[in-house]
């Protein structure tokens, strides 16, 4: 049976934790509202950039060797299954591609991805990007990431961006968008239906599309992360209040037990004198 002091100490610490998780939920709710507002125009960038690939039905040929995986997440935790779902998807893809004999390199946007995959897949990492998630992502961030990828010297034939697509306040889904290399797009048959496409225009478009896709995935990812953090902190506050209720009951029971014990001692002491 715990002493009154232990229970009081526990009660105080859980009450503090509940205050913290409640305030984190408020902060996440505010950030989520802003992120969702900024997501609407950002979706247009993403769908517009990918429209060419879909309309022209560009598919990478099967025999291409070099693959690039970009996992988009963030630096900060306490947001539910956001980081682990991306890491799980990355691990599966790495295994599948390696077994098919392809060369795979991974790029992590956000420190958590590096942390989760460092132990087992550290030799697949091309580079990591940090300071993601502190402020809402801008197109400048996406441009920096795209520039670094293009200058990295890793000539990939095909790639995909893995991110958490925002569906609603309570749900998100891990999704994947393709990236094609210059040769794949240039060599695609259906490209001849488009007017005025030469190698220079195509290369410009490829670079711009890379930045666009990254911007879109960053925006979706932050919105999903904030909504997941809101849910997680809400659950934590609820659990904390449950624990507080239970502990208060045990505290009162313990308090009464202590008083009863003292009474018994006094009364039996007094009875012994008689």
């Amino acid at each position, binding site marked *: 049976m715990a002493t009154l002091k232990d229970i009081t100490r526990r009660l105080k610490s859980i009450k503090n934790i509940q205050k913290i998780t409640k305030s984190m939920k408020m902060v996440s709710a505010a950030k989520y509202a802003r992120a969702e507002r900024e997501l609407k125009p950002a979706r247009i960038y993403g769908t517009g950039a990918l429209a060419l690939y879909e309309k022209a039905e560009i598919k990478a040929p099967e025999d291409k060797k070099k693959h690039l995986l970009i996992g988009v997440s963030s630096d900060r935790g306490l947001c539910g299954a956001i980081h682990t779902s991306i890491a799980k998807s990355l691990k599966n893809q790495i295994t599948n591609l390696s077994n098919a004999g392809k060369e795979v390199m991974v790029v992590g*946007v956000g420190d958590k991805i*590096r942390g989760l995959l460092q132990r087992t897949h*550290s030799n697949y*990492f*091309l*580079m*990591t*990007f*940090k*300071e*993601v998630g*502190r*402020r809402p*992502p*801008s*197109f*400048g*961030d996406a*441009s*920096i*990431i*795209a*520039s*670094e990828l*293009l*200058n990295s010297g890793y000539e990939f034939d095909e790639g995909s961006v893995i991110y958490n697509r925002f569906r609603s306040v309570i749900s998100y889904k891990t999704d994947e968008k393709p990236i094609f290399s210059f040769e794949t797009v*240039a*060599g695609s048959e259906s*490209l*001849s239906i488009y007017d005025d*496409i*030469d*190698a*220079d225009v*195509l*290369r*410009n478009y490829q*670079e*711009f599309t*890379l*930045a666009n896709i990254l911007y879109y995935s960053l925006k979706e990812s932050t919105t999903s992360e904030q909504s997941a953090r809101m849910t997680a902190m809400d659950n934590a506050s609820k659990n904390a209040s449950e624990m507080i209720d239970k502990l208060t009951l045990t505290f009162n029971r313990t308090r009464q037990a202590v008083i009863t014990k003292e009474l018994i001692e006094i009364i039996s002491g007094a009875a012994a004198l008689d």
Partner: protein
Amino acid sequence: MVAERRGAAMVAYWRQAGLSYIRYSQICAQAVRAAMKPQYKAEAERAAMATVKTVKPKKE
């Protein structure tokens, strides 16, 4: 197939200078932001702030 259609100087001047399209658009956007009126400039500067840092894995 695509290379045949290239004319004599179809490569853009900035591409010849070694810039990528992304770097080119960044410079153009910077110029546009610098040309904005003060009350809109602050907003644009704030929206364009980029905070991402690169971490290259250490070679062992």
